[in-house]
């Protein structure tokens, strides 16, 4: 029983649900018919064999609708609260949104936040003045910023006060402006370049050129074949556009290739040729940029300089050779002169007058002095000859100590004091540094006054050079002669008081100059002398 009752109740519930559903569908159907009858529908959709078709009930707007849908511009209709009531497909595409999600949205959603007040101003101006327009930015998909020109016009339709907004995409225009600006800039750079620069296309025709290219070719070259304008040969082989473009195609570089350019009159120019490929985005070779640097003048100057240097070296070496052979070859006859004079003296001393003996003595001593001079001259010509081997480094402390040791007897005899500060390692051959110390310390001991000599050797570094100083308390040098003392055979004192030929400081100067250094003296008469010289410091030395 209960079971049957339950079943009946269930049936009733089902029927009631069906009735409810039917009632609602009936209402829906009646409502549909009523709406169509009372003209509330705009359009009817009919399934035709060729697909769905829309029948607009008010047909007059059809051409305008098609125009709005097909035109390039994006357009939306806004209600006074800026709700988007309608958008054409272009607007949805512009902001990158699905078209069914645009209508029914607030316009602000697609507006760059920074331009919100600008947009409000546009609307105010349009409402007040009937139309307004301005440039601002929309916000597209992925927060992309889209520059647009917005035109806003109030639109009163069937009692609604809407706004018609047309947005013109300015992206392409902006891009074009940028490209034009860049093209103008690069053309300016190209035209004013000092070097001859040409751009050739695939056919080898010059499509851009700098003013200097015209000067080099001695005629206008724009739109001329490159090969006609510039007849180039590199290493005896014709350097034409065929070769250049082929090199570009296989990715070969042409950078600073030396080439000869034959001018029509028979003259030639020396050029450096460089070329870089111009490719499309698809990596197709469109042409290339060729730079021609005229090095004719530079080459001429270089050659002149080289020949001058060669001449100078030759005359220098001639002079050196002459000085060497003069001093060397003259010594032999001179020695014989001395020997024979001495023989004369020893064999005929008793047969000659006393005065003759004195004259012979003068002759012998002159011969000896001259021999000494020749020996010094020989030493001087050889002074800066480099010993074999690579650049040497010499510990100056060691050399100084050894040099001082050679003067031991003289130091003991004169009661001299020699102070030597810690000295650096210098980029100089040991033999040269020894000669420097030998001459400078020797002079300091030799040209002493009444006081026992006091010599102080010190070093200091400045500007990547070492400056060594040998200071003494000797007789000093008149500042008027401070340059003269470094000349060959320059002596400030007569032969008697101080021995020596006057070659020592000349040798010092020659050595120091050989290493790119400088030697000079600071002194006053009776106040001692300070001889100073500079030498390069040892490379890689820890600073």
């Amino acid at each position, binding site marked *: 029983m209960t079971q049957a009752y339950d079943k009946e109740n269930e049936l009733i519930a089902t029927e009631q649900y069906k009735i409810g*559903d039917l009632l609602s569908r009936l209402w829906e159907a009646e*409502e549909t018919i009523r*709406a169509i009858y009372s003209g509330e*529908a*705009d*359009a009817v*959709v009919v399934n035709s064999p060729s*697909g769905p078709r829309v029948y607009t009930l008010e047909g007059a707007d059809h051409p305008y609708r098609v125009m709005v849908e097909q035109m390039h511009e994006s357009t939306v*209709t806004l209600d006074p609260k800026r709700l988007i009531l309608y958008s054409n497909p272009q607007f949805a595409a512009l902001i990158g949104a699905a078209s069914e999600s645009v209508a029914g*949205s607030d316009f602000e959603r697609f507006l760059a936040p920074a331009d919100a007040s600008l947009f409000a101003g546009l609307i105010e101006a349009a409402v007040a003045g009937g139309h307004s327009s301005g440039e601002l930015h929309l916000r597209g998909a992925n927060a992309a910023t889209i520059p647009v020109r917005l035109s806003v016009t109030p639109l009163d339709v069937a009692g609604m006060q809407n706004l018609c907004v047309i947005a013109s995409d300015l992206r392409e225009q902006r891009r074009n402006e940028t490209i034009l600006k860049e093209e103008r800039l690069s053309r300016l750079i190209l035209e004013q370049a000092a070097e001859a620069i040409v751009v050739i296309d695939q056919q080898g025709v010059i499509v851009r050129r700098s003013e200097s290219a015209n000067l080099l070719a001695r005629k206008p070259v724009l739109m001329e074949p490159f090969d006609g304008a510039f007849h180039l040969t590199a290493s005896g082989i014709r350097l034409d556009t065929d070769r250049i473009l082929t090199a570009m195609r296989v990715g070969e570089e042409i950078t600073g290739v030396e080439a000869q350019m034959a001018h029509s009159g028979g003259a030639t120019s020396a050029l450096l040729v460089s070329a870089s490929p111009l490719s499309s985005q698809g990596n197709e070779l469109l042409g290339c940029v060729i730079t021609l640097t005229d090095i004719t003048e530079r080459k001429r100057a270089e050659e002149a300089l080289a020949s001058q240097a060669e001449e100078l070296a030759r005359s220098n070496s001639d002079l050196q050779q002459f000085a060497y052979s003069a001093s060397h070859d003259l010594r032999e006859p001179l020695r014989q002169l001395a020997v024979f004079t001495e023989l004369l003296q020893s064999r005929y001393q008793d047969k000659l007058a006393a005065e003759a003996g004195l004259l012979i003595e003068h002759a012998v001593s002159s011969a000896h002095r001259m021999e000494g001079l020749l020996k010094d001259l020989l030493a001087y010509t050889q002074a800066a000859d480099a010993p074999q081997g690579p650049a040497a480094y010499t510990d100056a402390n060691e050399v100084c100590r050894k040099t001082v040791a050679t003067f031991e007897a003289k130091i003991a005899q004169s009661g001299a004091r020699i102070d030597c500060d810690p000295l650096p390692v210098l980029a100089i051959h040991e033999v040269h540094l020894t000669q420097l110390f030998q001459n400078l310390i020797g002079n300091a001991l030799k040209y002493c006054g009444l006081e026992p000599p006091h010599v102080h050797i010190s070093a200091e570094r400045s500007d990547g050079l070492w400056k060594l100083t040998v200071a003494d308390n000797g007789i000093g040098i008149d500042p008027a002669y401070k340059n003269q003392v470094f000349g060959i055979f320059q002596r400030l004192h007569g032969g008697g008081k101080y021995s020596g030929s006057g070659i020592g400081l000349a040798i010092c100067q020659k050595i120091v100059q050989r290493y790119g250094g400088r030697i000079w003296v600071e002194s006053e008469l009776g106040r001692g002398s300070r001889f100073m010289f500079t030498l390069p410091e040892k490379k890689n030395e820890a600073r």
Partner: protein
Amino acid sequence: MEANSISSRPSRAQNRTHDLRLYVAGSSPRSLRAVQNVKRICENELAGKYSLEVVDIYQDPRRATEDQVIAIPTLINIKQAPGVLRRLIGDLSDTSVLRKGLGLLEAGPA
């Protein structure tokens, strides 16, 4: 895409009571008014609980036949409860019809 999640679908699917699709014909006056009316009622009474698609049958006629739409404008209530109307035709200026169609009559006076 952030720009696509627009104000008419502000909430997650589980909170929604109404998924609406409005078929319009371009910018015809009734279509424009229909958009405005639906949006107003939804924002006033269903804020955060509805989604709205506006389909222009000129731009996308195929969808109209899929939903068996024969007259424009038509509002379709996709997430339909028993006893609630499935579709309404017209510019929906008659608010009481629209409210009844959305099942909102019980919530307040017409």
